[in-house]
C-alpha cells in the first residue's frame, strides 16, 4: 500500500461516465420500445388534435394553425414524460427493488456523482426524444427554421430539472404507489397549464401567474420561439430553466444522500 494513490475529487467525469455507461448498456436492451412509443404518441396526438379539433372546433390560435401550435407545445409534454416519470420510477426501482445503487456506491462513486449521472442520462435522452414531436409536426405542415437547432438544448436543460425532481420524489416516497399523488398533484397540472394545448393568457389571473412560473411553459415558449422567431425575453426564460435544473439537482442530491447513506 505504499504506491502512489489516485486522487479522487468531487464530480469526477470517470465516475459519472461509468454510471452513464450502465444506463447506456441497459438502454440498448429496450430502446426499440421507447423509440416506437415516443414517435407514435405525437403522431396520434397530432392526428386527434390537428385533424380532429382543428377541423371541427379550432382553426388557429395566436395566429398559428392549431396543428403547429399543438405540435410545438407537445415538445414540452414529451420532455416531462420522458424525464420526470423515468426518473421517479427508474430511481425507485433501482434503489428499492434491484439494489443497483448499493452496487454502484460500493465502487468509488459518491451520491452526488450518481445523481448527476442519472440526471445527465435522462437529460440527454429527453433532449433527443423531446425533438420528435417537432419533427413529426413538420410532416403536418410546420416549416423548419434555424432557431429550431436550439430546441434539443432547451429540452435537455428542462429535462435535467424534471429528472432532478423525479429523483428527489423517488427518495422521498415510501411506496411506489405514492407516485400517484406526485403525478396527480404536480406532473399532470404542470403539463396541462404549460400552454401546450391552449394559451395560458386565457386562464384566470391567479392561474396565469402560476402558469408563468411553470418551467414547462418556459420550454413551450422557447420551442415556439425556435419555430416562429425568438424574442429578447427568451434569454430570461432559458436562464430560468437553467436555475430550475440547478435547484432540482441540489435537492435531488440532498434527498438521495439521506436515502442512500445510513
Amino acid at each position, binding site marked *: 500500500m505504499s504506491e502512489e494513490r489516485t486522487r*479522487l475529487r468531487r464530480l469526477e467525469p470517470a465516475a459519472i461516465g*461509468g454510471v452513464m*455507461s450502465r444506463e447506456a*448498456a441497459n438502454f440498448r*436492451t429496450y430502446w426499440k420500445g421507447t423509440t416506437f412509443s415516443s414517435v407514435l404518441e405525437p403522431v396520434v396526438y397530432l392526428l386527434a388534435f390537428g385533424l380532429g379539433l382543428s377541423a371541427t372546433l379550432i382553426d388557429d390560435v395566436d395566429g398559428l394553425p392549431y396543428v403547429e401550435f399543438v405540435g410545438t407545445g407537445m415538445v414540452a409534454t414529451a420532455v416531462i414524460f420522458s424525464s420526470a416519470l423515468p426518473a421517479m420510477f427508474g430511481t425507485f426501482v433501482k434503489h428499492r427493488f434491484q*439494489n443497483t445503487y*448499493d452496487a454502484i456506491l460500493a465502487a*468509488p462513486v459518491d451520491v452526488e456523482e450518481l445523481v448527476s449521472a442519472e440526471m445527465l442520462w435522462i437529460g440527454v435522452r429527453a433532449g433527443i426524444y423531446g425533438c420528435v414531436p417537432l419533427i413529426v409536426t413538420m410532416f403536418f405542415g410546420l416549416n423548419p427554421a434555424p432557431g429550431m437547432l436550439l430546441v434539443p438544448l432547451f429540452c435537455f436543460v428542462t429535462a435535467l430539472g424534471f429528472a432532478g425532481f423525479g429523483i428527489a420524489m423517488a427518495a422521498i416516497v415510501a411506496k411506489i404507489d405514492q407516485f400517484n399523488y406526485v403525478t396527480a398533484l404536480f406532473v399532470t397540472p404542470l403539463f396541462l397549464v404549460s400552454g401546450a394545448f391552449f394559451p395560458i393568457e386565457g386562464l384566470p389571473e391567479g392561474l396565469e401567474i402560476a402558469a408563468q412560473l411553470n418551467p414547462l411553459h418556459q420550454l413551450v415558449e422557447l420551442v415556439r420561439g425556435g419555430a416562429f422567431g425568438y424574442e429578447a425575453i427568451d434569454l430570461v426564460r432559458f436562464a430560468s430553466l437553467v436555475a430550475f435544473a440547478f435547484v432540482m439537482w441540489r435537492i435531488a442530491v440532498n434527498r438521495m444522500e439521506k436515502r442512500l*447513506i*445510513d
Partner: protein
Amino acid sequence: MAAIELRGVVKRFGPITAVDGLDLDVPEGICLGLLGPNGAGKSTTMRLLTGQALPDAGELRALGHELPGDAKAARAEMGVVPQLDNLDVDVTVEDNLAVFARLYRVPDVGAAVDRALDLARLRDRRRDAVDELSGGMRRRLLLARGLVHEPKLILLDEPTVGLDPQIRTELWTLIDDLRSRGTTILMSTHYIEEAERLADEVAVMTQGKIISRGKPSELIAEHAGRETAEIYAPPDRLAEARLTAEAVGLRVRPAGPAIAIVGSERANGEAVPADAVIRAASLEDVFVLLTGEEAE
C-alpha cells in the same frame, strides 16, 4: 499495517444499536470470518467500511484511509461482493463487468473483463444476458464483478447465503483461490462450515460486538474442549441428561432434536450416557455456546 482497523465503532438506527463499540483489526493477507447470527451487526459493519453507513462514534481505517471522510479512495482499492444479487439482468455478462471496470477506473477495460470472465469461468457466456445464467453462474459473476479491478481488500457479505450446496462449494473454491493468492478478505457469514473452511481466523460477533476471536482450532480448544457427546433420546430423557451433565459443571447446548454435552472428555462416566455419540468438538459448538443461537 492492518488492512482494516476499527476502534470503538458505534452505529445506531433509532433505538437499535447495530454496532456497539466494535474493535476489529484485520491484518493484511488473511481471511477473517465474521461469524454471527442474523442481526449481529455484520452487514452494518460492511456498510461502515464502504462509507454507505456513517458511524455515530469510533474510528475506522481501511487500507490506510480514514473513514468515512476518505471512503471513496478506500473503495477504489477494495472490492465488495454483496449479499443480494444486484446484477443488471437484461445486460450481457461482459457489459456488467465492463461497467464496473469503468467505475473502478481500470485503464484497460477489455483486459479486465477478460480476466474477470476467466475467474468466473464464464468466457463462453460473455455475450449472454445475465437472466439466461444459472444461479451458480450469477454468483460467480457477482464475485468476479467485485474483483474486476484486482482489489487489495475484498469484503464478502454473506457470499453464499441462500445457495444450494453445490453452488456454495463452487464459490468456496473461488474464494479459497483468492485467499491462497494473499488477498485480504473480510467475510461475514452465519454458516459455520463456511467460516471453518475458508477463514484463517474467525471473529464471533453478536449484538454488535466481537465476543471471541482466533483460529478455528484455538476457539474450539478454548471454548469447547476436545469432544462433544450428542444424545438422541425422548424429551424427558434429554431433560434428565441435561440436568445430570450441568450438575457436574458441563455445558450443554441444544442440537436440533438432540442435546450436545460440550467438553465431554472432562466428564466422569455418569454424566455422559453410554449411548451418547462422541465426536470431536466443533466451531458450531463454540458458536452456539457463545451466541445462544442455533447454528446453520
